[in-house]
Every structure is written in structure tokens, then in C-alpha cells.
């Protein structure tokens, strides 16, 4: 790839997208060299289409120049899914930020991929509706990015992750052609291509319009805070709540370290001396909510909860949630760097796996905090550290590998909501056989025979039958 090649590519993109539609200055290339994960790459050119037609044009120009392309929303992804690899054209969707249609009767909205998650909920709030997936980054992350990673969030426990809220997607495929996957009718003839596309981390094409389901606001919402003197008791309460036949709207757990950090940061009213707190939300109709509040309180007290506090009003409820959603802001005050993990275990294994996770951190002499979607069994061990400390990265990575291995050994999976991206690509063989990976590669390649849509993500090298196993890592990581 020569400088001249890149100059022609930039000129072609500028002529299709306008003079401010593409950039290749060092500052832009550095800005777009990574997402919120740790892997860094390098883009050849970054472009900013304003319409689906411009997205298709950018994809076609990339093809003419034999370049891969990487799609990016706000760049809040944590698994390196938007990290540019192989000198690609980075296609940024943030200018595609219009809510195109809201239908309150049929309860759906057509949005462009760059619409921010929380902006959609704000836009439909007056209709008594909301967009249910609520990742912690919901103020910043885009719905297109949510589709790419099949994003979750605290309220996905009862309402399901992004895939259950996407009805239809207009996509630009890697050859520049367009297709509508899914539809507003309940069923489509043939394969569920919409279902295949959600969670494919940009490897199957680019969403340019997305129809999402809107959910009716629950008439009654109650938020409870339970605090415990041991993390095991809190984890056992989580299992107990599910076993009692209660599926709360949200069931979040925070350990001692993070509870203190959050309390110091936003003063949410969490008990600073708790070993763990559970934030539980139940919603629905009066009778069901009352029943669930009683059951959650009873199960908590049976498992040693010190106090059960039910938010008295909306202000108190908002404050309790502010604590949870500020967790990552609070960490910045403790250490300059953090590494957030994401894995899922069966809910019955929570107590056992958490014990192992703390032992691993202790052994590697790392500070670990846990703030996570306990009701789903979705762990988020968070390692905080100072990257300037010699040798610390090795220990952080070693701890990460051991945590994943412990989750997998307990019957868990590699990611609950962040995705695989580059971060966990090489861990895929922990849960999938060569035949399993080959089948995934067949699906991916059927969508994009050229392999130019976000190359090298999700599947480890050697996933395709006949491909060499374990090609050495490139220099880009």
C-alpha cells in the first residue's frame, strides 16, 4: 500500500461523500485507531457518510481499491470490534443520526444506525414507550453499534438483548449491494437473515436503517437495594430469586470495592461498609410487583441481607441507578487504567465462579472489582491498575485468561454482551470445536464472500477447513 494509493482512495471518497466526508490526517487516523478496548490498529482513511447511498458508495470505493472496510459508531465497544486491521477504510456512522419514523400504534421506530441509544428512548418517552436494551454506555453508544454487538444492559434480564428488539435492517453488503433483512410483518419466508446479522460485529455488512421494537413503559416500577456482609450471600440471593420463580426487570450486583468507589463518587446512598449490594428492579402491574417485592425481600433476608431498602420515590430510584451507571466513572478515581471483562456462567454457578475470580485476582496481585448483571449470570470482573507499573499487563492478561477459563469450565460462554472482536478471537476454541468454527465461518463468508467486511474479527485464524492453524499474530495488535 503506497502513499499514492491512499491519496487516490481519499480523493475517490471525497468526490463521493464531499470534501468533509473523508479524512486521512494523522490526528483522525489516530482517533479512529481503536475503540474503547485495548487493541490498536491503523486506518488508511476515515469517512463519514450521511446517507445509506453514501455508505454504499464508500463500500464500493473500498472494493474498487481492494481495501477492507470497518464500520464504527461511537467507538464504545470493548472488544476491539471496530479496531481497523489491514489498512481499511473506516466508515463512521455517526452522521446517520436521524430517527426516521415512530409508530406508536405498532410500537416500532425506524432509525439510522448513528442514533444514540438513549436519544431514541428520550424521543419516544412522551408516548409511554422506550427502547428496552440499555447498555451502561447508553448515553454514548449508537443503535447501529448495539446491533453489531447484540448489546445487552441491566434491563435485558427480563426484556432480552438487542436481537429480540430488532425487527428489520436495511444493510449494505460487502459488494455494495443493498438488502432488507427481516421486516415489519411477524414472519418472513426463508432464513432469518436479520437474526444472523445481529451480533455479527460488522463482518456481514453495514446497517443503514434499523427498525426496532418499542416497549410500553411499565405502569409500576419498584427498585430495591439489598446489602450483604458477604459476597457469597449476595450471589446466593441472586440464585435464590431466580429459583423462586422471579425474573426481575433487572438484578445487578456490586462488590465492596465498587460500592465504596461509587459512593465516594456520586453519593448514591449505598452502604459504604457492605461486602456487596444487589440492585433489584421489578416492574409490571400492581399485584405482580407487590408479590415480587415481597419475594425478593424474603429471599434476601433468608440469605443474610442486612437491610432491604425500597426506593420511596422516583428521585430515590434514579439515585440508586445513578450509582450503578456511574461505576465506570468512579473507577477513574482509583487507578488510571482498567480492563473490563465480560463472560457468562449459568446462574446456579455464580457463587462458585465468583470465589474463583477473586482468588485469581489475589494470586496475580491485582485489584479487582465486580459490578455486573447478576441475574443473567453475566460477570464483569474489572481489573484496575496503573499501566506504568512494570509487568502489570502480563498479570492483567494472565488473570483475564484464567477468569475466562474458569467461566468456561463452569459451563459458561466467552461474552454476554461485549462481543468477541479481536479481544477474544483466540479464545473461541475454548468453547467451539473446529467443526463449530467452520460452520460459523461458512455463514460469515456466505454474507461476505470477499472477506472485506471487518476482516479478522470474531473467528480465529484457522476457523475455515483447510486454513492453516495458528498463523502467528500480525504486528498490528
Amino acid at each position: 500500500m503506497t502513499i499514492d494509493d491512499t491519496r487516490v482512495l481519499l480523493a475517490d471518497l471525497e468526490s463521493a461523500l464531499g470534501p468533509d466526508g473523508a479524512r486521512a490526517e494523522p490526528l483522525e487516523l489516530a482517533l479512529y485507531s481503536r475503540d474503547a478496548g485495548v487493541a490498536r490498529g491503523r486506518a488508511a482513511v476515515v469517512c463519514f457518510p450521511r446517507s445509506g447511498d453514501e455508505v454504499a458508495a464508500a463500500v464500493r470505493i473500498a472494493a474498487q481499491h481492494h481495501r477492507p472496510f470497518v464500520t464504527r459508531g461511537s467507538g464504545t465497544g470493548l472488544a476491539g470490534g471496530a479496531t481497523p486491521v489491514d489498512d481499511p477504510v473506516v466508515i463512521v456512522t455517526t452522521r446517520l443520526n436521524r430517527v426516521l419514523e415512530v409508530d406508536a400504534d405498532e410500537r416500532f421506530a425506524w432509525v439510522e444506525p448513528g442514533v444514540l441509544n438513549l436519544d431514541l428512548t428520550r424521543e419516544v418517552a412522551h408516548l409511554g414507550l422506550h427502547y428496552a436494551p440499555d447498555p451502561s454506555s447508553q448515553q454514548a453508544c449508537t443503535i447501529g453499534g448495539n446491533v453489531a454487538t447484540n448489546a445487552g444492559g441491566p434491563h435485558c434480564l427480563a426484556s432480552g438483548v438487542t436481537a429480540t428488539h430488532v425487527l428489520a435492517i436495511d444493510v449494505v453488503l460487502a459488494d455494495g449491494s443493498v438488502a432488507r433483512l427481516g421486516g415489519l410483518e411477524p414472519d418472513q419466508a426463508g432464513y432469518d437473515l436479520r437474526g444472523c446479522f445481529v451480533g455479527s460485529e460488522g463482518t456481514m455488512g453495514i446497517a443503514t436503517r434499523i427498525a426496532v421494537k418499542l416497549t410500553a413503559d411499565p405502569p409500576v416500577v419498584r427498585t430495591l437495594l439489598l446489602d450483604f456482609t458477604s459476597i457469597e450471600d449476595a450471589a446466593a440471593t441472586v440464585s435464590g430469586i431466580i429459583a423462586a420463580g422471579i425474573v426481575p426487570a433487572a438484578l445487578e450486583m456490586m462488590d465492596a470495592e465498587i460500592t465504596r468507589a461509587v459512593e465516594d463518587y456520586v453519593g448514591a446512598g449505598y452502604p459504604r461498609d457492605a461486602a456487596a449490594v444487589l440492585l433489584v428492579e421489578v416492574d409490571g402491574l400492581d399485584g405482580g410487583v407487590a408479590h415480587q417485592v415481597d419475594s425478593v425481600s424474603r429471599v434476601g433476608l433468608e440469605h443474610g441481607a442486612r437491610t432491604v431498602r425500597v426506593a420511596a420515590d422516583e428521585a430515590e430510584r434514579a439515585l440508586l441507578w445513578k450509582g450503578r451507571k456511574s461505576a465506570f466513572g468512579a473507577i477513574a478515581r482509583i487507578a488510571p487504567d482498567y480492563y473490563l471483562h465480560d463472560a457468562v456462567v449459568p446462574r446456579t454457578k455464580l457463587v462458585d465462579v465468583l470465589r474463583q475470580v477473586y482468588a485469581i485476582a489475589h494470586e496475580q496481585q491485582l485489584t479487582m472489582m465486580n459490578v455486573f448483571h447478576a441475574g443473567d449470570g453475566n460477570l464483569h470482573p474489572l481489573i484496575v491498575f496503573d499501566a506504568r507499573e512494570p509487568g502489570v499487563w502480563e498479570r492483567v492478561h494472565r488473570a483475564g485468561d484464567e477468569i475466562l477459563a474458569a467461566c468456561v469450565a463452569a459451563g459458561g460462554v466467552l461474552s454476554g454482551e461485549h462481543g468477541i472482536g479481536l479481544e477474544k478471537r483466540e479464545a473461541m476454541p475454548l468453547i467451539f470445536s473446529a467443526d463449530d468454527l467452520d460452520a460459523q465461518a461458512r455463514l460469515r463468508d456466505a454474507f461476505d464472500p470477499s472477506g472485506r467486511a471487518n476482516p479478522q474479527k470474531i473467528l480465529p485464524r484457522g476457523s475455515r477447513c483447510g486454513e492453516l492453524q495458528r498463523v502467528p499474530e500480525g504486528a498490528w495488535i
Partner: protein
Amino acid sequence: MVAVTALDDLCEVVAEAPTVIPVGSRTHWEVGGPLTPRPDAVEVTAPDGVVVYDPADLTVTVGAGTTCAELTDVLGAAGQECALDPRDPASTIGGLLATGLSGHRRLGLGPLRDRVLEVRFVTADGRVVKAGGPTVKNVSGFDLPRLLVGSLGTIGVLVQVTLRCQPRAATAEWFSTTADPFAARRALYRPSCIAWDGRTTYVLLEGVAADVDAERNRIGAPAERGAPPTWPDGRHRGRISVRPAAVWGLADPLDATGVRWLAEIGVGTVHVATDDERALARARATAEAAGGWLLREAGARGLDGFGRALPNARLAERIRVAFDPTGKCAPGRLPRDDDDD
């Protein structure tokens, strides 16, 4: 034609057979396209029975040959259910997933595909592939389970699935009323089903008794518990899929076709049945005029299974060929796009 059940033998048989036809209980045998008759076809069935069930995890893993009735019994003993809701409980889990047809509680509980967490299937060349994961939340790798749901046996032979379960509601009651079904939809908070035949609105409410009662009052339905609606039956059956709001405008034209019909309000599914094949053809034309389509579910040999080309035919065909290069898996079930590649 031989039937194979043991998993060990299954892979070998599938690998060697020139044509493979996955068979469950044949309750959905006529859904979609008819099988292309082939003298060398080998019918295979999936293992049955519960593999893993821990109620505290709210998940269950079963052989794909397990019947929905058996699963209902096993889960029911623990106060749980998996809302598959097939018309015929003798349906196997694998057969139901292969058709992808959602049950009548889709309005409240979502479509069938959302229940599936992990699948194991035998590929055309006889390998067992696992996809998805056994936990309730998982984004590890590509979503092959959703590809399998509704694929009518053309991707491979489903042998094992892990499904999401839920606690059974304390109370589940049908009520019938003459109230406007769309007004009921707006008034109620997450009803499980609102069915409408153009005259009577049938509402399924689930939850604690006090809530069911309050919701019933909200739409002015009589306090007596009503009977569930009768789902239309006849020699020729189909299901219309239209935008939910289009159902209102379908009522009169559907009555004029002579079919019996029952619509799921808020979903856009309309179940139609008749003993006159021509009436089903007229219902299909009515659905298409409203921007939807009609899937043939039973009978109506003279009708095409889908009445339309598959959307995104080239892409769909690339996927099919990627998994089944020789076209041996359930040939004919999905229309092929032979000319367009």
C-alpha cells in the same frame, strides 16, 4: 427409506445418504414447500428426552426429537414452562423449530426464535456442530441458532437444543368481549394474546390473580372466565403475515373469501382455514393485497408453499449452499433460486 435414531449412527447415515429428510412427528409436514420426491431419500429422526434440566437456571436441554407435550410435563413439574405453544403438542421440538412457527402467546412473550439458546445439528457431511451457548445471555460468535430456526431442515439435522424457560404465571385466563381488539391492545399492559375473528375479541391474561382481574375490568370483559378461541381448522390451512395495523382492513376481505380466520392482534399473524382450496388461494391474494403473504401450513396441494420468491434469494442460496453444497437436505422445502446466481 430407513429411519435412524441413534446419534452415533446418525452422523454416518447423514454423511452417506444422497438425500436426507429430518422427520419429527409430522405435525407440520405440509408447511412450506413440498419435498422433492427422491427414491434415495433417507429419513432420520433426532434423539429424544431431557438431557439437562436445572430449574434454578431457567434453561432446559433436550433432544430435538422430544415432543412438546413431554417438555411441558417435565417443566410443569417444576412450575415452569417454555412458551412454544404448538397447535399440536405431539410436535417435536426439532420439527417446531425447523418451521419457526410461533405460538399464540407471541404478543406477550415474543417469537419462537427468542426461546432458543443453543443448538446442535448434524451437517450435510455428517459432523455435529454446536452453536450458540447454554447461558441465557451470549454473544460468543455468529448466531447460527437463529439461522436454524425456520430453515425447514435445509441447513442440517437438528439433534439437540437448549431452550429458555420461565416461571408459570399464577393465573392464566381467557376472556371474551365484543370490545375493539385494537383498543384492548392499547389499554392492556402486556397481554399474552389478543385474538379476534372479526366479531369477538379473545384476551389471554397471565399474572397474579389481582392483576388479571384489574386488567379484565379495564377492557370491560365479563368476569366469567371464557373459553379459549377455536383456532381455525379445515383441510386447507395457512397463516398470513402482515403488518399488525393491516389486520383491521383484512377482516371484510377475508370474510368474503369464505375462509375461517382468527387474527393475533398486535402481532400481524392471521390463521386461516377452509375446506375449499380455492378459498385459501383467495385468502393469499387478500394477504398480498395488504402487503403481506400467506404460508401454506396444510393441504392446498395446488398452492405454492410460500406464494412468493424468498426475499434476498441470492444471499439465502449462498447460505444454503455453504452448508449443503449438493442440495441433499430436505430438498424442495425452501424455494431455490437456481437462475439468479
